[in-house]
Every structure is written in C-alpha cells, then in structure tokens.
C-alpha cells in the first residue's frame, strides 16, 4: 500500500501536440529525403516536390514552436547558438532547418542542384533519425529501447513515402514494400526484446499491452501487408502502411512515457 504527501510529478509531460509532431516530423523528413533523391537522380527536377518538402518542414517547426510553453519567450533561438551533440532535439533542429534551407534552394533552383541534393540527403537523414534518438536516450523509460533508433526512422520514411504513393510516385513501390516489411519486423523484434528484457522491460510490456497492445499488433500487421497489396493497389497499400506506421509510432510515444514505480 503506497500513499503520498504532496504532489508527485508523474503526470504526462508530452501531450497530443507532441504526438502530432512525431507524425509531422516523419512526413517532413521523408519528403525531404524524396526531394534529395529526385534531385540526385531525375534530370528534370520536380520543383513542386521541393516546395512541398519546405512547406511540411515549416508546418512541423510551427507545431513544435506552438506546443512549447516557452513560445512567447522566443528562446528557441538558442537551439542555433549552442552545440549540444548529445541532444537529439538539437540535431533535430539543425536537421529540419538545414533541410528547409536546402529544400528552398532546390525549389528556387539556385545553385548546384546535385550538391544541394547530396547535402539534403544528410540533413533529411538527421531529421528522420533524431526522433528515434530522442526516445532511445531515455534509459529510465523501458518502452523506449535502443531499437527505437531503427524503428522510428524506418516507420518515419514509410509514412512519407507511403503517402507519396497516393501522388503516383509509383517508382517508390518496392521501397515502400521494403520499408513496410522491415518496419513490421522491427516492431516484432521490439516486442520480443521487451518480453525477454529485464524486470522493467517486462513491466513496460505489460503497460503497453494494457494500454494499447492489440492496436500495436494491428499496426504492425498493416505494415507487413504492404508488399502484398502495393503491386496492384499502390494507393491503398500506401494508405494502409501509413496508417499502421503512424499508429505504431503514436502508441510507442504515448505509452512509452511509462516508468516503473521507484522501489
């Protein structure tokens, strides 16, 4: 029997705005990577795609700025005035800002397209990787395992490229299929890892199962089904994969804040 005197700070610290951000950042990063890929491979560079990437990145940055309680303190400038290599969000800020700048240059057609494209691959890669790092770097939260470093970028890219299928980017079909399968496999590996993890990991798995276990499995199944459908119904397959990826990511971020009670 445990009771408390005083207010315990165990409430949620990331709310629905953060969950929205985790999906938007995936979209922004994925589309930026697609832009970089097109810039490097296609002769005729689709300027509209670059504008879309810039718009998505801008949207995500606005959501990030609006959700923070320090929005009117304008302290976000310090993200770019210090060097914090161990901070995922610091990398994220530079990744997103860099991608936005390069996307703009590509969209306006200024400067060497292939160079910007190559750089954009790097910055959009950072933008896709940093959410995973933001979760994995919290050792005290058993549901945010190091596997997040792989699961979040894969599902992030799947969200963006899966959605791209709806805009007749059919050359991405094999990639989306691959992403779908690897996302589902990583999800399965994640669950197995939790099951055989330590005391806290099992407690975390219990929490995940209670709070949203079945939905998580459905999400993984949706991703797994991508290769089977992507050939004949690319749009439908894309949509299912995106839904699965977004659901899986949101569940992990929301439930993952769980921390086993201190003994």
């Amino acid at each position, binding site marked *: *029997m445990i009771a408390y*005197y*005083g*207010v315990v700070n165990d409430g949620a610290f990331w709310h629905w705005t953060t969950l929205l951000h985790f999906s938007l950042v995936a979209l922004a990063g994925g589309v930026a990577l697609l832009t970089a890929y097109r810039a490097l491979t296609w002769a005729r560079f689709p300027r509209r795609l670059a504008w879309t990437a810039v718009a998505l990145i801008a949207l995500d940055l606005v959501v990030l700025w609006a959700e923070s309680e320090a929005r009117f303190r304008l*302290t976000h400038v310090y993200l770019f005035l210090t060097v914090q290599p161990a901070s995922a969000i610091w990398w994220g800020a530079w990744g997103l800002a860099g991608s936005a700048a390069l996307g703009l240059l590509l969209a306006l057609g200024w400067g060497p397209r292939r160079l910007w494209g190559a750089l954009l691959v790097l910055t959009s890669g950072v933008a896709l990787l940093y959410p995973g790092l933001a979760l994995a770097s919290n050792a005290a939260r058993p549901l945010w395992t190091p596997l997040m470093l792989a699961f979040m970028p894969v599902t992030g890219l799947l969200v963006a490229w899966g959605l791209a299928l709806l805009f007749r980017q059919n050359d991405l079909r094999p990639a989306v299929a691959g992403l779908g399968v690897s996302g589902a496999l990583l999800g399965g590996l994640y669950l197995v890892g939790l099951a055989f993890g330590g005391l806290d990991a099992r407690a975390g798995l219990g929490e995940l199962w209670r709070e949203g276990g079945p939905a998580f499995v459905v999400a993984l199944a949706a991703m797994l089904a991508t290769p089977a459908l992507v050939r004949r119904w690319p749009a439908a397959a894309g949509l299912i994969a995106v839904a699965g990826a977004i659901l899986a990511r949101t569940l992990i971020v929301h439930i993952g804040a769980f921390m086993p009670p201190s003994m």
Partner: protein
Amino acid sequence: MRLKRRAFLKLSAASVGAMMLAPEAGALKLPNPLARAPRAWYQGDVRTVLTYCENCFWKCGVRASVEGGRVWKVDGYAANPKSRGRLCPRGQGAVAQTYDPDRLKRPLIRLEGSERGEGKYREASWDEALGVVAAGMLAIKEKYGSESMAFFAHGSGDTWFGDYLPAAFATPNVGKPSVSLCTSPRETAAQWTFGRGIGGHEPVDWENTDYIVLIGHHIGEDTHNTQLQDFSMALKRGARLVVVDPRFSVAASKADRWLPIKPGTDTALLLAWLNVLVSEELYDRAYVEAYTTGFDALAAHVAPFTPEWASGITDLDAGVIRVVARELAAHAPRAVLPPGRHTVWYGNDTQRMRALYLVNALLGNYGVEGGFYLAQPPYIGAYPHPAFPLEPSSGGCSGASGDAAATIDTGFRPSVDRGTFFAKTTAVQELIPAMITGEPYRIAGLVAYGVNLFHSIPDVARTRQALKALDLYVAIDVLPMDHVMWADVILPEATYLERYDDLVAIAHKTPFIELRQPAVEPMWDTKPGWWIARELGLRLGLEEYFNWPDIESYLDTRLRSIGSSLEKARQQGTIVQGGRPYLADWEKRHLNPFGTPSGRIELASQTFADAGFDPLPVFEAPEEPPEGSYRLLYGRSPVHTFAKTQNNWVLMEMHGENSVWVNAAEARRLGLDSGDYVWLENQQGVRDGPVAVYATERLRPDCVYVVHGFGHRAPGMKIADGRGVSDTALMSRYRLDPISGGAGMHVTFVKLVPGAPKPRLPRLGKLAERSV
C-alpha cells in the same frame, strides 16, 4: 459626459523613473526581456522579524522574511527553545493563510430580517460593528446580568477574549476547547496526584530518558515541533520505545514494541503494570517512601489486576505486559510514560491519567532526570490594572486547572456548568445547554473567538440549536468558517504575521517568554485581537481596566518588570530565564514542589474519596460497538491543525482529503477496496461523508480511524469545502468525565454505507485559480 470623482490615487511626489532596473547578470546571452528568469523574493532586500507561530498551539518562535511589503517565508530560529531553528509543516505553511483570498476582510453585519445560517451580510465600519456588539452586550447585561454573556476562546488571543475582557465584563462563563475537549483529564489528574498541572509544554525530560512508553500519543502525526525533535534525538541516542495504540501509528513504526491494544482498555494495562511493579517489588522503594503517600492502599488495590487479568481485557499477551513492566523498572528512573495531550476519550479519563502517573511515580521518575522535570513558569509582571470583578477559571492548556474546593465568592453567580463535574475549570461544551434550556440561568450572548463551533464541540445539532436561541452571537475569526457565517456580527482578526499579542510565558525546564510583533501591516480592514478587545472594553464602559493607550506601552510596561523593554524584546524575540527542573534543586532551597493537600505524591487521593470518586484508578469496560459497527477513532495529520488549515492551499496539496482507515481483512469482508467512497453513519443515524476507504493492515478490525478536521460543509472557504468526512459531525453524543469535565469522544460507533459517489471537486492544483 465625465463622471467627476474624488481621486483616491494621489499623484505621488516621487519623480518618475525612481525605479532603477537591476543590471542583467549571465554571460553570452542575448538581452531578451521576454525570457528573463522570474525575480525571486530572496533577490530583493529582505528584512527579518522575530515572532511566534499561530498555526497550532505550540507557539514556536519564528523568523519571518519580509520583502516588498509581503511575508514570503518563515523559519525557526536557534535562540528559541521551542523551534530551535526548525519548524513543522504547519509552521512553514502558515504564510499561505495570511494571503488566503477567502480570508475575512472587513466587519460584516448580518442583514436585518435574514435567518442565522443564511450567510447574508453587509459590510460595516469598525465603529458601527463594535457599536452593535457593545449595545447587544449591554442589553443582555441589563436584562439577564453580566454572567449571561459567554466567551469561547482559543489561540494566543484567548488571553484577551478568554481572560482579560470576560474578567472585566464579569462573566464566569468562559470556555476554552483546549481544556474540556483536550487536556482537562491530564491536568486534573496531575493537579490531584502531584499537586501541579502538566502545562502547555509537556515536562518530559527527553534528553535523558532511555525508555519511553507512548499510550495513544501520536508523535510524528501530531508534529509538536520541539517534542518531535526530542523524540527523534532520543531514538537516535538509542532510547527504547514501546507504543500502545489500536492503530499502527507513525510512532508505532519507530517502536521496538507495538502493543495493538483493544480500544478503551488502557487503564487495565496500566493497572497490570502497577500490579507487576508492586508484586515483584520492582518499584523505587526509596522514592516511594520519600515522596509519596497511600502506597499500601495502592498495593492492596492493584493486587488482583494481574497481567493475565489484563490480557483478556486488552487483547495483549500477558507475557508482553509483564516484560514491559520489568523493562520499565530496569531502566527506571530514566523510563517515562509521557502524558499525551488530547486525553478526553471514554469519560473515565481522569482515572486513566492517574493510573499513568502512578506508574511513573512507582518508577521514581517525577522530578528526576530521565522522567518528568518540574516546569517553572517564567516571572513576568502583569500590567497594573484595577482588580477584575472576577477571574473566570477557564484554565487553558498552559494553565493549571482543577482544584474545585477553592470556590471563592465573587459576588456573581458561578458558571452554568458548576456542579455538573468536580473540577473548577469550565467545560466549553457544558456551557451550551444553558443557551437552550436557560438552566441554571439563561446564557443569551456568545462571543466565539477562534473556536470552530461545528468542528471542535461534539453534538453539533445541539450547538446549532443553541446558536438559534441566542440574542447576540458574535464571531471573531480569520477565516469565514461554517459557524462564523451564522454570526450576527463578524469581526475579522489579522493573522499572526500582522499583529501584536500579549506576551507568552512558557513553563519549561528553562522558562521563557516570547514576543509576537507584526511583520507586515494588517491586510484589508482586519484588526489585531487586542485592539478589538480594547475597543469593545471602552464601549462597554470598562475603560478603567483598559488603562493602557496601546499594545506597545502595555507590552513595554510588562517587559520592564523583568528588566527588558519592548525594543530589546523585538530584537531578541525570546527571553529565557532559569528554572528548577529537578527535585534536588527544590530540596536545596528547602521547598516542597508537591501542592497536594498531603504535600506528597498522592497515590491514593483522599480528595477524590471525599468527593465520592474512587481514590485509586479503576478500570471501567467501555461499551462494545453494536454488530456491523466500528468504534470511530480519530487523530492528526502532520500537515494539518484541527479544522483550521483545510483552506491553506500549500498544506492541502500535501494532504487534501481524509480517508476512513478500515482493517484490510474487514474491508475485504465488506467488499470494499481502497479508494471506494462510503458514507459513515453513527449509532443515532447521523450520516456524513462521502469519504474514501483506505483498506490497511495498520488498524485493528474492531475500529475505524479518520484524520480530524476535514469534512467542512459549504463553509466560506473554497478549498476546504466538501473534502473528506467530519468526525465531529458524527459525534452526536459524548461521555462527560465526572471529575475533569472532559467530553469523552471515543464513544461513537459508525457503519460504513457503501456506494457513495466520488465527490466532483476542482483539482487541488487548479483551486488556487479561484474560478468557480
């Protein structure tokens, strides 16, 4: 069209820009006015003021930190023997009460034509309000005589409204809850056993004791600062602790031995210990012969009360009872059974307290290192005023109470409760019947100062009926409590940080005097107690007794009687004098510390025998709870004081709601889980709640336990309203102790009625936002 108005904001002569902006510290940062770190109070110019706390009766000396016209923090200070530089949670949290938006702000007069309890008031100036009160009191004095005016008082201000003003107005009907609802059994028993009371600061010699037995004494849950410090240091020094309590209290969790006694059977246990000490000749023979009388009568009396006899009654193992008695003797005289404080339990409490004192006496620890020291009150002269027409014997937790013999003839009728019990001090709950029945004579007026009528006095229905029958009911308080909103006139008092009070003289090993001085100006239109009493006195034609122009000269005159002055005391805060703590000190000066008729510790009390009571303590089996009911026990939360801190948002964040403790097995049997909400219904069908269940192993199955002070019903206070259950509301009956006048309040039995809805209350954190 311009509405002309008279300016109330004067154009100050101060030139614009007098405010210099503090230079910005911090390197390598852009000057960003939007993101400046909030300026903390301790970065301003902080001045400190020494005073003493009012958030409980213990009166710890505090150092108030003031910045920008507001008190931000209070701390203890080392030179004060009560706080010794430390404070309890309520002392720390008292500042939040001064800045409670629900505080009473200005005098209020009940609207003509409105009923008492409707709470319809209009603001009034102090002149008008005091005028109405004085007129009312003079009318009552005219019609029924001055005795017909009753004063209830509690807190440091009870010197003004419990002693000074009633004595000048000449009414004996003064009641203090600190007597008959708390300490009267232990004071009366001590008065007739040792010839001196216990006093406000229990004279237990914690520094030197090696063995402590606590009976129903919840150190750690009641955080009387000095006592908690001494208790912790004694345990740290290796003193052994035995706790006798039906509940596994905080003290029990620190004890070497916990005796989960059946409620109401403590006297049997004490008699068994006396039996073992006498029969195995473990008592201190030399001490008994030198300082006590009546040992032979005691020896004969306790002969049949063997541990085996007590075991059946108390549910405790006979072997353990015997072992504890032997351990007590082994550690004597550095073994002590502290008296506790709230001792009005079953209506035969004076006898229980005498039994406890007799065990101490047989251990030879009274006036000896490691037992009880002999507390001496400090010497301080009274203010020279003409003799009061009469001295009300309302006692108080720091005043001796109990020698009924000396009923001096004052030319006025005795208090209405005279004769209903043996002790001389008045019993606040026994003054109420006279308001309804008019027997022995009518009480037509009441001034309630700092007394929560509906949360301290049992039988609340009777109190409400009495309030309706009064001609005049005046409430002087800091918060708009439930009973305050019944008053005809409400006079708002300033909180302790905003006022002077009379000097506090604490009887102690090193007796000392504490000064209270204001740290800030009173907020709104509130006044200090002394000012209200004095203004009332002048309007009642008692100016001869209020022959001091203001409180500063009153205090200065008193302080000069011991060679100090108000100015010196304002810097010092506490004036410590020398004491005579042990018997040896008294014998050196050929003085006898025992004020009993026999001049010795009276193991058998002839006075009690003459008054028709048992001269030696006897065990009286308590009434058993009916089937399906449980005895309602109550106690304290470390962060709350009675029913006065439930609107303090800081303390309520610590502990915002009481719950009803139920034995885990019993709860399972009733199908209840922790967190379910139930009603509590007592033996007379009075129901209160809803309250959450706390199924725990820490309690015997035959009783339930709640923290006292919660369950305020729609009071004037937003945070306190509707949180938890009120144990006092469930006490529709009590058993009067015929000797001390104490109201035994452990005699309520309650049923748990499941299915109560969980009350929808604003989240505590949001409460401070003050929206509806």
